[in-house]
Every structure is written in C-alpha cells, then in structure tokens.
C-alpha cells in the first residue's frame, strides 16, 4: 500500500488545490502545495529507508484491473525506480518553492498551476513504480496532460506552439507504444492468459522479427521522451517557452521516464532486439552528446542552451544503458539522478535571472557577478556540475558511463569523451558572457537571491556536492537492481586484459 499512498498523496493534494477557493490568500494555496510535496518526500524517504537493496522488487501491490485484457494494477519498486522516485520527490518541493514568485500570464490561476505540478508528481511516481506495462502506458500518457497545461497555460512567449509541438511529438511516440502493447497482448493471449505484468512478460517467447518490431515501438516512444537525436527538437522549444519550474519537472523528471523505461521495458523484455539495435543506438547516443553540446554552444537563449546540454547529457545516459555493462548502466542510472539535480539548479537559477532581467538572451546580461555574487556562484556550481567537474555528482556517473562503454567500444567512448571539452565551452562561455566583465546596461536590476530562493536552491546544491564525494548510498541501491538487466542482454562484462588484484601489488614499484 505504501506506493499507492505515495502516489496518491500529491494527486489528492492536486485535487484539493483545484477546488481551493480562489478568493483565499494565494499564499495559503502555495503553503498547501509545499506541505503536500514535503509529505510525499517524507513518505519516499521512509520507503527508501525500508528498502532492501538485495531483494528485487519491493512494496509490491498487485490487483486485477481489467481482467478481459489481463491488465493489472501492479506497483513495485526496484533500485532504479526507487532512485527516480527519490529524485521526483526531492525536486518537487524545490520546484514549488521556486515557483512561489512566478509571474503567471493569469495571476488568479496560481492554484491550478500548483495543482498541475502536484498531479505531475503523482503520475510520475506511478510511472516509476508501475510493473504492469498497460498501467505504465496509461500513466505515461497521463503525464502529458499536466505538462501540456503547464507549458501551454503558464509559460511565456510562444507557449501554445511549444505545448502543441510537445504534445504531438509525445503522442506519436505514445501511439507507437500503444501498437506495441496491443502486439504484446496478442502474444500473451496466444500463449495462454493475456497479461501485461512485467514478471509475465520477462519469460515471453517472441519470434525475432516480432520482437524487433515491438522493441522499436517502445524504443521510439522512449527516445522521443528522452530525447535522443534526431527526435529532440521539441525539447528546446518547450524549455524556452515553459516557466523554469515546469522545465525542471519536464527535463529532470518526466524525460527520465524515457531512459528509465528503456532499461525496464526495452532491455528486460526485448533483450534480443536490444542487442540487435545497440550498435545504432550507441552511435545515435554519441551523436546526441556531441551534437547537443555543439548546439548548446551556439545558443543565445539561456533556456535553450540548458535544453541542449540536456540533449547531450541524455546522450551519455543512453550510451551507458546500451553499452550493456554493469558499470555503464549503473552509471547511467546514477546519471539520471545527478542530471536531474544539476539541470534543476541550472533551470531554476537561470529562471531567476530571466525573471529579474526580463529577457532570456545571454547577450542581454553581463557583469551580473558584481551585483549578485551569490546568484553567480550558484550558476557556476550548477554549470560546473553540468560539465562534470570531479567532486560534483555528475562526474562519478559520467566517468562510470564512459569507463563502462570503453570496455565495450573504445572508439565510441573516446568520441564521447570529446564531449567534456565541449561541455566546458558551453558552460564557461555562458558564464563569462552573463556574469563577468563590466555590468551590462539593463543588468543592474538583477537582484541577489533572497531567502526563499536560497532555500529552493540550497538542497540541490548540497546534494550535488555530497553525492560527488559519497555516491555510494545510491550506487549500492542501483547496482543490484541492474544485475538481472545486464545478465539478460550481455554475456557478462568484459574482463580486464591484465587484471590486478586490489592491493596485491601495493607498492610494487618500490
């Protein structure tokens, strides 16, 4: 029941907020939203504390839902799901706190703005916990609704175009996935009882051609969501039109559904087809890394820049997943968490800059460091984590992805490593143009962060630093969950050519 309660908490909160009297003090609605999200966070922490890393799926719930087609209401968490549920519940309170001062197109609709955010949180938790592919699909598509409204109704200029583009892209993906799900139904019905349960699908016998088709149906949906080059163009538009908080929810949480689902539904259910597709996917991932980074360098809009850095980072995540080694997949999963944090910091802090300056163009800023050193410092930390500076959280995951990939394919890993130069370019050029030099006209009004904003940013910054040195709590949860996945798609990790027993040659050179 724990997971149902966890997912329902924000959904009920959203319902309450939807009917919250508009005449009431807007602060009361914000307080309710924050309270609900904090309760969800506490629940998630309780779940995490009870979680046993070695024991597979936990907090399992399973009920018949639509017996005619074999759909179940089935929830359960493994280490990967737990990591992402934690990410979701950690970021939502921060996002709500940061959205406190958002200037909406229609200020009287703050309640519904917050309600949609909570609804999105609840649905995202459901997606990460669903162990029935039909339930997963329903929730996966349901997340589009709040996000569509968050972009389309509460964004900035060009919001309706961006919202429609977002929706159409994702619906196309969803349609393909629906077709694949119907295919799965047909297969399971043929084999006996129709069932969409993860555990039943694992053992399903599928012919080679069918498996590849079904895999593609799922994979394209997830690749659009993630987004993988060349299916990425909806993301920059959506990020440039959405409010900062919405962008965080979209990029840090909802887009992770794509990469999360690649592991759970592509690798596990269609191992053969995943192996078949992996050479192409790996190349696309490397293209994403370099292409996203190069495009980020060329942007003048802060939000589009961050969106393109995310395309690059998602490339790393997908690279790690499809390299099929324990190290790289564990790194990729950790990367999902870390990227969520660092992108959240970047989107939120640039959102604060944009709100103060009234423009998102990098060329409209300059010398901000002088008037707002703390803001500049947070931007720098966010940026440095985005370029994977050792000591900050993303480095560990990026290195794991690269090192794991390296054991499988050296050329690809080396090409991906070039991304770290480009990352330095896009972050440092952006920082230099906005924060250093003489104060640009118009930038005087960029105030220092206030207490509420510090409260919204500090937890993420602290986590980024802490996880940079102590990633082990998450890794120890993630890695056991990936054992079966990797075992399904590969014949075991490549072994070192000249293995050295740890400690055996301690001081061998002396």
């Amino acid at each position, binding site marked *: 029941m724990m997971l149902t309660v966890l997912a329902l908490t924000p959904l009920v909160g959203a319902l309450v907020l939807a009917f919250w009297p508009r005449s009431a003090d807007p602060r009361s609605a914000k307080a309710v939203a924050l309270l609900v999200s904090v309760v969800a966070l506490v629940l998630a922490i309780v779940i995490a504390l009870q979680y046993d890393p070695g024991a597979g799926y936990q907090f399992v719930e399973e009920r018949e839902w639509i017996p005619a087609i074999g759909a179940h209401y089935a929830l359960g968490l493994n280490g990967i799901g737990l990591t992402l549920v934690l990410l979701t519940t950690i970021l939502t309170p921060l996002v709500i706190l940061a959205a406190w001062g958002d200037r909406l197109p229609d200020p009287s609709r703050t309640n519904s703005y917050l309600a949609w955010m909570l609804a999105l949180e609840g649905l995202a938790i459901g997606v990460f916990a669903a162990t029935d592919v039909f339930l997963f699909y329903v929730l996966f598509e349901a997340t589009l609704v709040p996000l569509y409204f968050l972009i389309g109704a509460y964004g900035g200029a060009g919001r309706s175009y961006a919202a429609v583009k977002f929706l*159409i*892209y994702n619906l196309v993906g969803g349609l393909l996935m629906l077709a694949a799900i119907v295919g799965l139904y047909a297969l399971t019905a043929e084999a006996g009882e129709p069932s969409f349960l993860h555990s039943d699908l694992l053992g399903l016998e599928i012919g080679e051609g069918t498996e590849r088709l079904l895999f593609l149906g799922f994979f394209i949906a997830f690749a659009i969501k993630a987004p993988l080059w*060349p299916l990425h*163009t909806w993301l920059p538009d959506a990020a440039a039109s959405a409010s900062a908080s919405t962008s965080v929810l979209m990029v840090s949480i909802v887009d992770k559904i794509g990469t999360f689902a690649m592991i759970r539904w592509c690798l596990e259910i269609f191992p053969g087809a995943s192996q078949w597709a992996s050479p192409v996917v790996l190349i696309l991932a490397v293209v994403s890394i370099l*292409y996203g980074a*190069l*495009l980020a*360098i*060329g*942007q003048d809009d802060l939000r589009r820049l961050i969106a393109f850095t995310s395309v690059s980072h998602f490339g790393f995540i997908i690279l790690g997943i499809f390299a099929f*080694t*324990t*190290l790289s997949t564990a790194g990729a999963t950790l990367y999902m968490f870390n990227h969520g944090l660092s992108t959240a910091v970047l989107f939120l802090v640039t959102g604060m800059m944009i709100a103060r300056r009234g423009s998102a163009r990098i060329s409209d800023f300059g010398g901000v460091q*002088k008037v707002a050193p703390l803001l500049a410092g947070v931007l720098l930390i966010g940026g440095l984590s985005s370029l994977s500076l*050792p*000591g900050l959280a993303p480095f*560990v995951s990026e*290195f*794991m992805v*690269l*090192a794991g990939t*390296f*054991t499988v394919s*050296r050329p690809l*890993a*080396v090409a991906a*490593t*070039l991304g*770290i*130069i480009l990352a*330095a*370019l896009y972050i*440092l*050029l952006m920082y*230099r143009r906005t*924060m*250093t*030099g*003489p*104060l640009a006209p118009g930038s005087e009004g960029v105030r220092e962060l206030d207490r509420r904003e510090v409260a919204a940013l500090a937890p993420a910054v602290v986590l980024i630093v802490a996880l940079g*040195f*102590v*990633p082990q709590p998450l*890794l120890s949860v993630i*890695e056991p969950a990936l054992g079966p996945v990797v075992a399904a798609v590969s014949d075991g*990790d*490549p072994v*070192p*050519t*000249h*293995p*050295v027993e*740890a*400690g055996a*040659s*301690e*001081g*061998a*050179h*002396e």
Partner: protein
Amino acid sequence: MLELSWLLIAIPLAGAALLLLWGQRSDAFGHLIATAASAAAFVLGLVMFVELLGREADDRSVTSTLGTWIETARFHVEFAFTVDQLSSLFVLLITGVGTLIHVYSIGYMAHDERRRRFFAYLNLFVAAMLTLVLAADYLVLFLGWEGVGLASYLLIGFWQHKPSAAAAANKAFIMNRIGDVGMVIAIMTMFATFGTTSIAAVNGAVGDVSATTATALGLLLLLGACGKSAQVPLQAWLLDAMEGPTPVSALIHAATMVTAGVYLVVRSAGIYDASEVARTFVIVVGLVTLLVGAWIGCAKDDIKKVLAGSTMSQIGYMMLAAGLGPAGYAFAIFHLLTHGFFKANMFLGAGSVMHAMDDDVDMRHYGALRRAMPITFATFGLGYLAIIGFPGMSGFFSKDKIIEAALAHNLWIGLGAMIGAAITAFYMTRLMMMTFFGERRWRDRVHPHESPSVMTVPLIVLAALSVLGGALYLGNWIGDWLEPVAGHAEHHELPAPVIVIQLAVVALVAAGVALAVWLFRSDVPDTAPADTDVSILTRAGRHEIYTNEVNGVLAVFPVRYLTRFLVWLDARGIDGLVTGTADRIGEASQGLRATQTGYVRSYALGIFGGALVVVLGLLAVTLG
C-alpha cells in the same frame, strides 16, 4: 601520524568552506583564517616529513584510506592517500611556498574588497593540489587535478570585471580540458586493462602488458601533463593566465600547479619505464617547450609574461629530465623544487614592483628601481642568480644535473638544454637590466616605494631558499631519497668530464648575461618598437610564436563554424523536416477546404453520390 594525511587536505578545505559559507561577516579576519589553515597544513606536513626521515628507506611509503568513493562489482575507488618520499616533498613545497604566498597576499590584496574570497580560493587550491600529490589512485589524482584547474580558473578570473581576465580564465580551463581528455582516456584504459586505477597497482603491472598499451598510456598521460604544465602544444593559456593577481601567478602558475605534469610523469614512472616511445615524446615535448618558452621570454616587455615564458621553459627542463627515465626523475623533482623557490620569489618580487608602479607591468616603464626598492631588488637578484645557474646557487645544481643527464642520453638533446641555459641567462638579464638598472622611464605620478614588511618577509625567506635550495643535492641526498620512488639512476658515461661540462655551461651563461648587459645597458626606449622594426625572431616571440593564431585556425574557427552550421541545420533540417510535414498536412487541408461550399444542394449531392457508390459497391459484391 602518517595515517592522518587526509588532514593535510581537510584543513585548507575546511578553511575554504568556512570562508565561502560564512560570508561577509568574516571579511575582517578571513585572510587570517586562511593563512592559519595553510600554515597548519605546513606544520603537519613538516611533522610527517620528519617522521618519514626517521624511518627505514623501504618503510617510507604509507597509504591510508579515508573511505570509499566508488564501489561497484567491477570498479573500486577509494579515497586513499599516500605519503612517501615524493609526495612529502611536494607537500612541503605546496604548503610552505603556499603559506608564504598567503602571507604576502595579506599585503598585496589589502585593498581588494573581495579579499576574503581570494583567500578562500587560495585555500581551495592548496587543498586540491595536496589531493593531487597525495592521491593513491589515478581517479583521486584526477579529482585534485581538476580541483586545481577550478581554483586556477577562479583565481585567473578573480578580477572578473576585466573581460581580459575572464577570457584568460576560460582559455586556461578549456585548454586544460583538452589535456583532461587524455587523462580520462588514460584512466579508462587502465580500468579496461587492469581493472583498477590504483597508481601503485597500475605502475606495478604495466610491465606485463603490450608495448602499445604502455605507450598509449604514456602518451595520453603526457597529453594531460601538457595541458596542466603548459607544454607545447597546449602552452598558450599560461601567458594569458598572468591576468590573475600576481600571488596567484607565483603560487599556481609558477611554483606548484603547473609542475603537476612533471609530478604526473614521475609518479607514473612504471608506465614510462615500460615505453621507450612515450619517454622520447616526453623528452621532445620538454626540449621544444624549453626553447619556445625561452624564446617568448626574450621578446616580451610585460614583466609577468617574461616570467611566464621562463616558467614554461623551466618546466620544459623538468619534463626533459623526467623523460630521461630513472636517470632524470630525481633531477626533475630537484629542479622542480628549486624552481618553486626562485620562481615564486621572482613572481612575488615582480608583484612588489607592480605594486610600486601602480600595477603597470610594462618593463619599458621601469628602470633604476634598485635604489627605490632595495629589498625587492636584493631578493629578486638572488632569484635571478639562481635561475641563470650562477655557481653555488640552487639553480646551478639542479639545471646542471639535468644538462648532464641529457648529454649522457643524447648529445643533441644535451646541447639543446645548454643553449636553453644561455637564452635563460639572456632574457633574465634583460629583465633585470630593464627593471632595476638603467635610467628611469617611470610614467608621471608614479612614486615607487618599498613594499610593506608583510610582503618583503616572504620575499626574504624565498630568496634564502633560492640560494640554499642546492643543499638538497649535498651528497646526492635527493637522489637517494627518491630512489625508492623514481628507481635507481644508472651511472652513464658522459661525453666529457663533469667539470668540463660545468665550465661550458657557465661560459654559455656568462655569454648570455654579457650580451644582455651590453644590449640593455642604457637607452632602452620606453615604448616598444613597432613590429615592423624588429627582427622576425622578436616578432614571432612577441606573438607567442603565433600559437594563438594556429589554435584559432585549427580549433576555434572550426568549432565556431560547425556550431553555426549545426544551429542552422537543426532549425532548418531536423526541425524543418518535422514542421515541414505539419505544413504539408496543413496545405492539403487547405485544398480540401474548397469542397465546403455551404450550399445545401452540394452536400445533398454528396450524400446521394455517396449512397450511389455504396449501392453500386454492394451490387458489385453481391452480383460479382
């Protein structure tokens, strides 16, 4: 005590964190906290060093583990730190020179409103640099490696309001990142080959792997070392880095951080021992840089850039020595230490001069400062004697040993190093003549004065070390001390007796000095001659041998145009494909719109027509 090596890092790190988090309330005393933290680390380092001295030679490497960093089934990295003969020397250099520079900065940065932040960054640098040298694992080393890069970035760009400083900071970080790619790939190769990245394990086992792998590792690490140590071809950032406050140039861009590449090569002795090719590359890089740096040093009028060119050149010596293998490792480190003393001394002296000249760095505006600034002159002069290798000074011993080792390895390399020594003498004498001798060429309203004692005391200490640093060589102490780390130096046949070589070097140095004295004894124009009026050598030197232009053509412009092209492609090509599809559908709908006339009869006709088609279809099916 030696197990507490992590404390060495923790103390300055805590200082940095304290100052950054405490905020403006600690403005008044922040610099004292930082200096105290650095000094405490020095004391701790000294205690550890003494303890090492008291141990048996084979018991002087102590590795202690603070905790686990990354732990997975296949990959395991611990925060492990090694105190041994090599790292303990570095600890003393970093914390000792670091503390002196902290003290100096109290005076130098006294009027800067962001002084607390400056000290926080300095402490951060010390912590990162200690991590680099103490690390027992390449990945932890890389953590320190990037940490010093970050501190360097923050400190070069400390005066962020100057666009040139911000640009220089970016350049330094990005060029270092190019080197970092080499480091990262090297570490990945270690993981793929050995399953571990522990420094001891890798260097112990590297002898068993194929020569290709060993060479690849050596070259990749060399790429990283080139970035950090400003060696050709990644040297261009160092001259720009002089935009940072002068204490930063002294600590980071002369004494410690830029020598990290040399440390890396010596620390990876196992890898370089296994690959002759990689060692040759190290030698070539070192030799080329040593000449290029000296060349640039001859042409620049900016006092800090002359010193920066000199730093490149001296690090070239160290690289060259490190590339010689066991024969040179100890001398590389020896020269690194003495260079740390005299170059820090001279940079701080230059800072003192700039302080007196209202932050003017152009030597053509100096002249005759020896009377105005006697202490600075005296200390700088001692540093000068040390760097040109005046007999008896520290630089004499350390450079001479490298030249000897180079001669023993290959005559031409040795001759190159000897020519470098002559050029060094030339450009340093030029600097001395233009700054301290000759007639006054001061700008109006400039009144040179000696710096306060908080700045001169560190100068005096460093000057003393510059003179006495050669004592490390007494009875080949440093060679014996480092032998367990660097390997035993075989005795090599020299092409000539040692005394002959020494005399030849001294003669070359004297020639360089004499030439410079004669050229710059007087009538130095106070504005630099135009590029067209100087020899092609000077012109190339002034433009840093056109490396920035080369980098521009090879890297900057391609990336810029590729970026623009891709931005265009993304909007027109990829997104255009999608929006184009949408547009086509829209146009098709426009065409279909014409059928909606609004006349009832046309709709009715449509219905009848449709019904007719259905009926005919049915008939066709049932009858046919």
